[in-house]
């Protein structure tokens, strides 16, 4: 009896969902989705299809475009939930404990009723490795889903493909970046793709498809981020080394950069590709066995040395794709960094034109500057024989200071240090630069990397050639700066029973 009431949902095998509802989705997007759900330890087994789902993003586009047509068009989408275990309709109807707070929930994708079929808002838990490398997704966000009154949770990097009507790749990339940040950042809001396009174009009223689908200029992308409440920063024609560093540093801090690239004329499996494209960097791979050989300064290296590729969400080519960065030849100038994007066995090559980072409000200091401040102080401490003159590696990431303190409480094993950090007034956003010995890192498992200490810098300061810092911790001692009567005062504490510990992992929840 109860089951018959649940008419709007259908439970099928995950493979069957791909053979039916998702069959006519753009092949590259479908294949990437398939890889992310089936090439993983906890493979998708069951799909639950909600056939009359009203999607917030599609609805807002619908009323601007399809809803104005004389011929009736559907505003209902299909939402497909994936589970890595067997889930039956009966269990959903009974809201059985196996379904509630289900650990096997992998997330969902929305299919828009357009021709050709396109994928709307998608939140799929990322796989643990990609193309054989250990993958990290610090930009993922925890979202809650309601399935027939059952609360489900998933940590994922948001994905959306363009509808080819009211948005292009730039809007989709901005949405992916914002949807990952907005739940975590005070002062910015989550919004739909049509609202992003309106912000980018400074439109106070609904617009037609000719406006949205023509794409955005770089300054319009920047304007949209400003409108959402960010303090965005834009760089142009980065060098390969710096592109890797800036993407790694900000992704580690949970900020998904938007890359604007140029694809020269090329053939990808019989199809000609050429033009301009934008996508979002959501994660990175890590290979501790091999590294590049370029220090930031003297014998101080960045942790981005160990990053062989990034993971991107590309609205036209799919979710969780591997993108390798390489140095472009002189013939490509002014373009200096190339990107090889892998879609299974296929690849497409582009060159980075612009790099846009949506900094949370009041964050003025870029992570690359914070890394240089850390390198400067490490070099200084080594030159004063306070630290041993061994090659060091620095890992920099942005953190909300309350989240940093929370992580310290949960993960740090040195009570005195824990108490000092907890007692310290800090700005809302800080750059944390952890450092370890390069020799200890090389060849170690990613889970066993150790740090010898860390530095904290004020992320709300504008970049300048000034040796700023808030705390400096090395084995056995810490220096901290406290504000007293609008002046910074240095305090020092010897740390008893100090020891190297694991790298901090910031929580992804809002």
């Amino acid at each position, binding site marked *: 009896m109860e089951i018959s009431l649940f008419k709007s949902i259908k439970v099928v095998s995950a493979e069957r969902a791909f053979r039916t509802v998702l069959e006519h989705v753009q092949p590259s997007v479908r294949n990437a989705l398939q890889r992310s759900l089936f090439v993983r330890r906890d493979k998708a087994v069951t799909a639950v299809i909600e056939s009359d789902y009203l999607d917030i993003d599609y609805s807002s586009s619908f009323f601007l475009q399809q809803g104005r047509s004389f011929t009736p068009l559907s505003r209902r989408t299909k939402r497909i939930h994936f589970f890595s275990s067997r889930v039956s309709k009966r269990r959903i109807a009974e809201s059985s404990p196996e379904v509630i707070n289900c650990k096997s929930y992998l997330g969902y994708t929305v299919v828009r009723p357009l021709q050709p079929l396109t994928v709307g808002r998608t939140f799929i838990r990322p796989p643990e490795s990609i193309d054989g490398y250990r993958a990290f997704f610090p930009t993922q966000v925890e979202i809650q889903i309601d399935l027939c009154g059952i609360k489900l949770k998933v940590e994922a990097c948001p994905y959306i493909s363009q509808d080819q009507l009211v948005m*292009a*790749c*730039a809007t989709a*990339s901005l949405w992916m970046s914002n949807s990952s940040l907005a739940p975590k950042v005070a002062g910015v809001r989550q919004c739909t793709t049509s609202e992003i396009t309106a912000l980018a174009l400074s439109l106070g009223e609904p617009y037609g498809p000719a406006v949205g689908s*023509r*794409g*955005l*200029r*770089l*300054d319009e*992308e920047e304007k949209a981020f400003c409108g959402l409440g960010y303090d965005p*920063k*834009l*760089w*142009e*024609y*980065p*060098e390969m*080394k*710096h*592109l890797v560093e*800036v993407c790694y540093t900000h992704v580690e801090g949970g900020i998904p950069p938007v890359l*604007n690239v140029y694809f020269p004329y090329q053939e990808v499996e019989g199809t000609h590709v050429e033009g*301009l*494209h*934008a996508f979002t960097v959501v994660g990175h791979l890590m290979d501790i066995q091999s590294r590049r050989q370029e220090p*930031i*300064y003297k014998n101080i290296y960045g942790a981005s040395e160990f990053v062989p590729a990034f993971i991107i969400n590309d609205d036209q080519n799919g979710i969780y794709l591997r993108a390798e960065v390489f140095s472009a030849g002189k013939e490509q100038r*002014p373009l200096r960094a190339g990107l090889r994007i892998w879609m299974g066995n296929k690849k497409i090559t582009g060159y980075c*034109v*612009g*790099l846009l980072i949506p900094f949370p409000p009041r964050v003025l200091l870029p992570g*690359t*500057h914070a890394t*240089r*401040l850390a*390198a*400067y*102080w490490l*070099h*200084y401490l080594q030159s*004063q024989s*306070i630290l041993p003159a061994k090659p060091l590696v620095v890992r920099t990431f942005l953190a909300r200071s309350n989240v940093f303190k929370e992580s310290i409480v949960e993960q740090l094993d040195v009570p005195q240090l824990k108490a000092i950090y907890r007692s310290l007034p800090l700005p809302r956003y800080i750059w944390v630069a952890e450092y370890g010995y390069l020799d200890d890192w090389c060849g170690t498992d990613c889970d066993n990397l150790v740090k010898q200490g860390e530095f904290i810098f004020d992320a709300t300061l504008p*970049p300048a*050639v*000034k*040796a*700023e*810092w808030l705390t*400096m911790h090395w084995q*056995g*001692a810490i*220096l901290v700066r406290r504000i007293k009567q609008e002046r910074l005062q*240095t*305090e*020092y*504490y*010897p740390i008893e029973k100090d020891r190297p510990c694991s790298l901090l992992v910031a929580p992804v929840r809002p």
Partner: protein
Amino acid sequence: MTKNKVDEGQITRDLAQIAKQVEEVSLRPSREVLEPLREMIVELERGLPPATSGEVLSSRVRW
């Protein structure tokens, strides 16, 4: 026990000295002392130019 106390006192004195030096560098740095930082930032800006230089921002192309 006594030796430990002496060592601890020495560590604290050393640390006080380090804190003083570090504060001096952060508040009143000489040009030479800041040179490594300047060098690093110049190299960074060469490899990662801000878009204020205009070429990209003024372009009319759309993404």
